[in-house]
């Protein structure tokens, strides 16, 4: 699937749904790399922690009439000392919780992030679990079956991904898009990610007074 084409398709297609997607997981499991692969189809082996991106957006065409636009929020490192702002979870429609298949403790961390999401986020949030770095299979420390079983029990989508080789990256985001309850969300306009536009006043789009400027 070519993401560049998707972006162009978004212009012409029928319905556009916009969602806020948040990333969670221990530091250095590859959260930003997954996004970078998905959004820009790039990978950098020596990438340091996330700097400079407030959020990235990417669109996926589910069919000729349906396009899903993700507004992807990176933790910006605020997760490191358990200081993620409530704003981060606010109105998140979906989340990708990432662990590193070569780091035994990272799945436990992922599980605690899932709990945190269940506590803080919208109860209807769609959560996907991603076991990243699947290209490092030789150093695997976490069985697929174990993670899959946990994901099934908890009602999460599950993929083993490699941001480096791009394996399952688009599949991960596409599955999330397909799992979003689109019709329901379109009908229920509460929350900024649900509909097509932000609720309330848009600072960058001044709206002149009703009439009569005299």
């Amino acid at each position: 699937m070519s993401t560049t084409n998707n972006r162009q398709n978004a212009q012409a297609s029928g319905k556009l749904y916009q969602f806020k997607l948040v990333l969670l997981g221990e530091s250095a499991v590859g959260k930003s790399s997954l996004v970078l692969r998905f959004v820009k189809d790039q990978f950098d082996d020596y990438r340091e922690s996330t700097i400079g991106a407030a959020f990235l957006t990417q669109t996926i065409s589910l069919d000729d009439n349906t396009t899903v636009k993700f507004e992807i929020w990176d933790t910006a490192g605020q997760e490191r000392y358990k200081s993620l702002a409530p704003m981060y979870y606010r109105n998140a429609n979906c989340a990708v919780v990432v662990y590193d298949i070569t780091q035994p403790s990272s799945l436990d961390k992922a599980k605690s992030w899932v709990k945190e999401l269940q506590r803080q986020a919208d109860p209807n949030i769609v959560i996907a679990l991603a076991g990243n770095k699947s290209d490092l299979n030789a150093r695997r420390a976490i069985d697929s079956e174990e993670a899959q079983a946990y994901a099934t029990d908890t009602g999460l989508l599950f993929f083993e991904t490699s941001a480096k080789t791009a394996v399952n990256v688009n599949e991960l985001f596409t599955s999330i898009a397909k799992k979003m309850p689109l019709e329901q969300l379109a009908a229920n306009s509460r929350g900024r990610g649900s509909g097509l536009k932000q609720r309330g006043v848009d600072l960058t789009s001044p709206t002149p007074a009703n009439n009569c400027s005299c």
Partner: protein
Amino acid sequence: MPQQLEVTEYDVIILGTGFVESILAGALARIGKSVLHMDTNEYYGGSWTSFNFQELLDWAQLLQGCPYYLVTICHVEESSGNSQENFEGKKALPINFSKARRQAYSTIEYEIYGILKQTNSTEENEEYLHKDEQDTSEETIRHVSTSLSNFERETLAKLLKESKQYNLDIAPKIMPCRGELIELLISSGVGRYLEFKALDKTYIYSDQDTFDKVPCSKEDVFTSQTVTLIDKRKLMRFLTFALDFTNSPETFEGYEEKPYEKFLKEKFQIDGKLLSAVLYAITLIQTKANDVNTIQGLTYTQRYLKSLGRYGNAAFLVALYGAGSEISQGFCRISAVFGGIYMLNHSIKHLLIDKSSNNFTGLIDVNGQQLSSTYLITSIDYIPEKLLQENEECEQISRAIVIIDRYIHEEGDASLTIFPPDSVGNEYPIRVLQFSEGTRSCPEDKYVLYMSTKASGKSAKEDLYKALEKLVNISNDDASLSSPLFALFYRHKFRDATLSSLLPDNIIVTNDSDSSLDFETATIQAKQLFEKMCPNEEFLPAVPDPDDDDL
């Protein structure tokens, strides 16, 4: 498990995640400074934060004196040992954050009101609460309810049940549609993290127990039912002048330093109710009329008029979910995106001061780890007592947070109501913001009133109660008014630490939130502190759009 930091040296350490500290954190990280931003609280926003209902109740009780079941959140961190120890040849001055916080607030009183019109039975509610497994709620009810009637208990149970739907600001503020903050939110990109609603209705209390809707825009003036034709002409003439007052200096010549009130009366024949409306609802002066001179008054009036028409008919916007907390979080996020390190729920034990230069060199945290930086930016709560000159004369603000079951005046997302001085025995204007579910302040069937005034009487409750009586059915039996469910009264100090001469040059202290209705003075303080620290750098330049650029 104590968390040790990998990096122990920074350009700037910032203590407290309040509004001004957060803007500075964002601005400094944005230009490439290494920033470590810490807060002893487990939440963002410091004394600008917002709480859900349970948290607000806990906070109020904490300030009244720590109840037994809250010790875990009390951050008891009384420093051990000598008050001034030596640490590697430096002075180590102890910080007492919780004591400083408690001293900033006074006359804290809360009331829970019974609801007489019952829809659900008592049993039903209690059952629900048990199902919820909300241990803390039950604990709270048990603790608070000994003195409560059954009706009051029921109200408390309902409020706790919906606790998470409340975002209650402890220092509520709004922002003018044109002003320092909104321009900064737009230019820095932080505005993209936030959501806003318009505040487009202002009411003023008049002597006959009525509330008049204040005509603000020229359009309002034309359609207003409450303003006489003569007054409409006067007001139109004045508003037209005030919008461009600098272009006709001859009009206010000789009045510059004289009271604004005198100018309005003599030059525009504005008097009576109309004068009150111009002074308190349009110019929004927060003190007595005589204390504002003509230049100041015209400047405020003009700012108000210029704010109209940008986002519909509103002069103000409200940031959703609790403005102080959300905006602070937004700037902290910018800081983090540009490399700022975040550590909440982390106590600081000592500040280290070099004995010879008397400069700040670093601090010691709860783990005994030494962290150093060139600058320290901090809210006043983290300043060791030895470095503070307590100013007994500092301004105090009386506030109330009131949860009610029905809107006052009219339905809507947000409104402002003004009680001019002396209208209900008050020395200073009382301002009442009403927020609804639309601002995400409360559940759908509730409204929140935020009242504030400069302190004058013995307590916050005394300063505000008479105004509250005019708005809600609190002590009389006027069923036409909405009923209160909960009211919290408190007073807080506006401590201006910049006045302390004992502070080392490289410690930069931010002020508490002041009595103004908006964030303008605080935004200006952040900008000025930044410019002082980094005179040749740009203040929060736009963040490049990552969708357009290569990362």
